[in-house]
């Protein structure tokens, strides 16, 4: 999951550069250039054998280039209407710093890292979105492990004394205030948390909470809705993701009615596409899915204001007897920020039914 | 006494194909109070000679004695003084300032020559322009304009008149009337007249005639 998050973050330094009077490079170069440039700038690289350490890894990793806290939720209003919701906070390191080194003096307005937050709500065929930016190390934005606290301005995720979490954010025409109760243990993707992103072993550290109970209030255009339902939180960090020949990312997080959960993603397109996934069976057992265990196919498209988007997919995992049809609801679900991407709730049918979220990048025509 | 004595005059013009000679050793003399007609086809140098005689153009070589003095020694300012009071010039047309009435034109010329304004109206009347004094040049006929031009010359009381086709643009009848006035005044005043013309009958009225095509 992911490239969009990488790409967006790469753009920020370019803005900063232009403000500082230097000429900014075009974002396109940043998209693919990250892998090439990323090797020798002192950022740490995830590798096979790296492990997840909790609760420390809930906090920020200043020695890595990029990371995020990514919540998606398929909620239901009091009268039974589905409501999709997203909250994401990204950190982009501009200068690496080891975890032992103290943070720079805030009075110097340091620029070792930049933060960005995205908030979106999808309801009744409509989509609301806003984004915010901040520099790191001055207190305006940050992330702490225990108790968990991730914030940018007043968009904040905080852990309460009763171990539940509070999440609130607001934008133009929307706001939400939610209580999150994390469910079962964290799911470590890939090899004990190291999730490969290419065939030759590059990747990221990646874990998720796949079953969070959420309840709270969402206000849309002045109208308040009580909501409840399950959410999915991704936690991922790395310093490089993309090989320069990889294009486009398709990511799915699906929750089946029988209790099974499926995460899969595809990097690139066609024969070169790299696929990976995780299957959590109804009993909670976690199974990593190798590239050759996953079949992914676009089966339907929708013409939108920003381009043609594959809104129907067919997913097959023969080894787990899964043959699923994935379908986005009607409407347009572009997160129309600095770097637009598609983020929509989906419904699942086929060998099992359920709900989930889908993130698609590389389809923006503009 | 001679009013004009020209000896061995040379004059040529520069043109694209080299120097074009106009006069090559021209010599002639005109006595005081006499009249000389300059004839010859177009381009034979009639106007050039008139220009040399009033100092508007220098000769290349040769001696020009004018009113008893060697004209070659004169400075431009001396020439100007001469034209101002003693040499009257009449052209075929456009002798009058368009923005002045006939009377004002004559007064201006008299004023420049240092002559009194008194006789100005007399001259206009005598030349048949009575009642037209306050008209502007474009309000009278060509003949009337030439009469006014003569009035200007008469008003300045010159010793020498240089006339370049003074009747060239007039019909025969008017031309002869204007010429009558000119000759009458010239004889009466004993003034010297040099007149360039194509009109042989006009040339015949002069005491002398110089054909510039042949130099005789």
């Amino acid at each position, binding site marked *: 999951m992911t490239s969009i998050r990488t790409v967006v973050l790469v753009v920020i330094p370019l803005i900063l550069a232009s403000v500082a009077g230097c000429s900014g490079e075009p974002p396109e170069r940043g998209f693919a250039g990250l892998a090439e440039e990323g090797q020798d700038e002192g950022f740490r690289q995830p590798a096979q054998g790296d492990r997840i350490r909790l609760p420390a890894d809930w906090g920020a990793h200043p020695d890595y280039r990029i990371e995020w806290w990514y919540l998606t939720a398929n909620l239901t209003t009091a009268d039974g209407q589905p409501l999709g919701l997203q909250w994401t906070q990204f950190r982009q390191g501009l200068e690496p710093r080891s975890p032992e080194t103290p943070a720079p003096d805030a*009075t110097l307005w340091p620029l070792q890292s930049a933060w960005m937050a995205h908030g979106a709500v999808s309801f009744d065929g409509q989509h609301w979105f806003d984004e915010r930016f901040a520099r790191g190390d001055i*207190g305006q934005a940050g992330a702490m492990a225990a108790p968990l606290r991730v*914030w940018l301005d007043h968009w904040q995720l905080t852990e309460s004394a009763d171990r539940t979490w509070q999440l609130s954010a*607001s934008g133009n025409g929307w706001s939400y205030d939610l209580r999150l109760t994390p469910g079962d243990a964290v799911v470590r993707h890939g090899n004990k948390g190291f999730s490969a992103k290419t065939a030759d072993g590059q990747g990221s550290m990646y874990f998720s909470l796949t079953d969070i109970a959420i309840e709270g209030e969402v206000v849309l255009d002045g109208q308040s809705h009580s909501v409840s339902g399950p959410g999915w939180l991704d936690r991922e960090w790395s310093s490089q993701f993309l090989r320069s020949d990889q294009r486009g990312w398709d990511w799915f997080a699906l929750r089946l009615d029988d209790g099974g959960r499926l995460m899969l993603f595809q990097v690139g397109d066609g024969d070169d596409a790299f696929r990976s996934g995780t299957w959590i069976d109804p009993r909670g057992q976690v199974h990593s899915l190798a590239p050759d265990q996953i079949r992914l196919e676009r089966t339907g498209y929708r013409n939108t204001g920003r381009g043609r988007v594959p809104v129907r997919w067919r997913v097959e995992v023969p080894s787990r007897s899964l043959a699923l049809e994935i379908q986005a609801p009607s409407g347009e679900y572009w997160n129309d920020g600095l770097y637009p991407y598609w983020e929509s709730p989906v419904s699942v049918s086929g060998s099992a039914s359920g709900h989930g979220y889908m993130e698609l990048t590389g389809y923006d025509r503009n | 006494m001679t009013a004009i004595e020209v000896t061995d005059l040379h004059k040529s013009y520069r043109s694209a194909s080299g120097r074009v000679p106009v006069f090559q050793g021209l010599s002639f003399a005109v006595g005081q109070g006499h009249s000389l007609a300059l004839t010859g086809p177009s381009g034979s140098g009639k106007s050039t000679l*008139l220009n040399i005689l009033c100092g508007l153009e220098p000769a290349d070589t040769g001696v020009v004695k004018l009113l008893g003095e060697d004209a070659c020694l004169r400075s431009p300012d001396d020439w*100007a*003084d001469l034209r101002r009071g003693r040499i009257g*010039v009449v052209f075929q047309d456009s002798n009058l300032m368009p*923005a002045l009435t006939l009377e004002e034109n004559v007064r201006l010329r008299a004023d420049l020559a240092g002559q009194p304004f008194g006789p100005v109206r007399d001259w206009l009347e005598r030349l048949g322009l009575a009642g037209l004094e306050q008209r502007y040049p474009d309000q009278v006929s060509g003949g009337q304009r030439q009469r006014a031009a003569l009035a200007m010359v008469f008003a300045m009381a010159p010793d020498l008149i240089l006339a370049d086709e003074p009747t060239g643009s007039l019909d025969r009848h008017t031309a002869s009337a204007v010429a009558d006035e000119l000759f009458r005044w010239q004889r009466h005043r004993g003034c010297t007249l040099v007149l360039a013309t194509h009109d042989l009958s006009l040339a015949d009225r002069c005491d002398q005639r110089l054909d510039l095509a042949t130099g005789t």
Partner: protein
Amino acid sequence: MLLRAILSHYRRHPLQLLALWAILTLATALWSGVWTLTTQARDSMTVGDRQLAGQQLLVRQDGAAVTVEDFSELRRQGLCVVPWLEVSTGEGGARVIGVDPLAMGCADSTRSGPVPVLDGEPFVDMAEAARLARQQPSVLRLYLAQDTDGLPGGWQRQPDPSALDTGELADSFLLNLNALAVLVVLVSALLIRSVYTLGLAQRRHGLKLLERYGVQRRRLRRYLLLELGALALLGAVPGFGLGLVLAEVLGSGFGVALESLFDASLLATPRTGTGFLVTLGVMMLVVLWCGLDLLRNQENRDGHRWQVPVAAGCLIGGVALVLGADSLLAAFVATALLLAGAGLVTPWLLQRLVAPHRDAPPLRLWRRRELGVLVRRLALPLVALQLAAGTVIAVHALVHTFEGTFNQWLDQRLAGDLFIEVPDGKAVSAVVPVLSQSHLVAGWHQVLRGQVGLSANGTTRTLDLMATDTRSPLVRGWSLLDAVNSPWQAVSEGAVLVNEQLARRQGLSPGGALAIVLDGERRKVTVAGIYADYGRPAGEVLMDMDFLPSGYTPGFRSLTITLPVNNGSGQGPLVAALEQAWQVDSLQVRDNETVHRIANRIFRQTFALTRAISYLTLGLAVAALLLTGWVVLGARQWYYQLLTIWGLTGRAWFRVIFMLATELMLVVWAAAVPVGIALTWVLVQRINPLAFGWSLPMAVYPGFWLELMALLVLAALSVAGAFYLKRPATGVAPVLVTGGER
């Protein structure tokens, strides 16, 4: 073939073609340059307004300096505050401003993502400014970039103390720039037309000949219009480019001015496409006007028969409208009417002005008559020059007046050397011991600002109140627009002064009464005088602080301090002593001299631009008059030569021609001065009050008129000299004499 015959005129007169093209190009350059500049200025102002609209300074109630922690805390509480770190980097008021582009995203809620408008000098990233701030004096401010209902405890809004409220002065300047742009178009249109019609007059003979040879008149016209269109295009394209260069050159100074005024940089490239279309459109209109003559059958010599009545109508209507105008549009229409009237009546008036007495000496008579001919033949370029010179006179007067009043106003507003805000909750009495140390302070007084109610027609409106010690010599230096006898004495006895805005709005005059409400207490006070207060739309009342109710709480308190003359150590020790006495970390201190210097620099640049444009217009008008004058003089050359044949010496002849040219210039000058005065008066006394509610004093500068006259005489000298040098030596009468009009 026909085309070649038509164009043969230009083969015989290549200079005329060149001149026509040059005038087209230069005129296009001038107006596209001015258009670009005004567009840029307007765009920058809009951006600046949008950036600063609703922006208010957020300050701590305890008066302490704000910190980065404060910023983060306010952001976490959901306030859209934007940091602004101003660092002085050297002498002369040079500064660097640190901004955080990431933090600015919240300022514009209609768009997501940061909006990096504050790009380039003097703006840098906060980190860089913070680095500089370690060595240089600096101040961190927090602007509230999006309005909010409530403020967190301990915080309060405050208008930016460093803002000098020059907004309306700048607006006024822009308005004048716009008027100037219109005049430039008008003048250059006249010039193009005059040069073109002059050429056309010369060609009429040849065109008639063609017609006689059987060429249809309609076809002939079509070709001529085609030729005109092609010429216009050939002139417009390079002219537009030249205009952009002009705008670039002039704009660099102008950009700096605006940037300092509005803290917004000039947009790099304006809408060039639109600019070109507008330029082309104006050009086509002008050319069409030139072409109108082609559609008329005959040269219309009776044109001026209707000219005088129409001119009289324009002038009478213009005067009536300008006196009665109550809207800006009406004032502009009136100005246009006046200018049109002046332009129409001038040739007729000049004709009468130069008409000689019949008994004048013949040569003078001739010269005057000749002048009359020139005035008629050169009517269009003369009027263009008249308007251009009038504009220059008006602009000069305007700029001088602006400069003078602005300086006076600055002196008034920036009295004393230092302006120090009294921190909230601190008493002035606490620092009186410091202020009475003569080696630190030469003089001081306190200024209170707050609100006062104005009772009128049964309602009470809130006005700004300024209260001070009116016995202070620093205040008594104010110049008043209108006052009773010894107004300051009256104020120290309880009367008030009001600003111009309030006086205009309420129809107040010195000696009148005003019903005010102070802290709920109703009072009737006398208006002792009216002071000019440019650029403040709000009404203001000034009174002596001794007459404030005892419980009155001002919104804002400040000290105005004069430093001792031989104070080598500057403000440092004083500020330190005050901080210590008040027990605060830092004080808001404004160094008046620096502000004064910066403000002066800004306005000098701005006015230099206005002057440059008006001089360029004048230059173009002079050039066009010389050009057309040259052609007209050339056409009448034979008659001038007659004077030589009639015995005028070279020197005397030159004198006559020079006198002729000089008199021509002098009559233009004489016609321009009243236009200049009228234009100044209309701009200063009518348009400015209508647009902004305040007027500038009217002043005339005869010294400048003389300078302008000298310039025009110099132009006359040059054309006479050139004419003298090219006079032919021979007296041969041309076969065809043209130009024989009277």
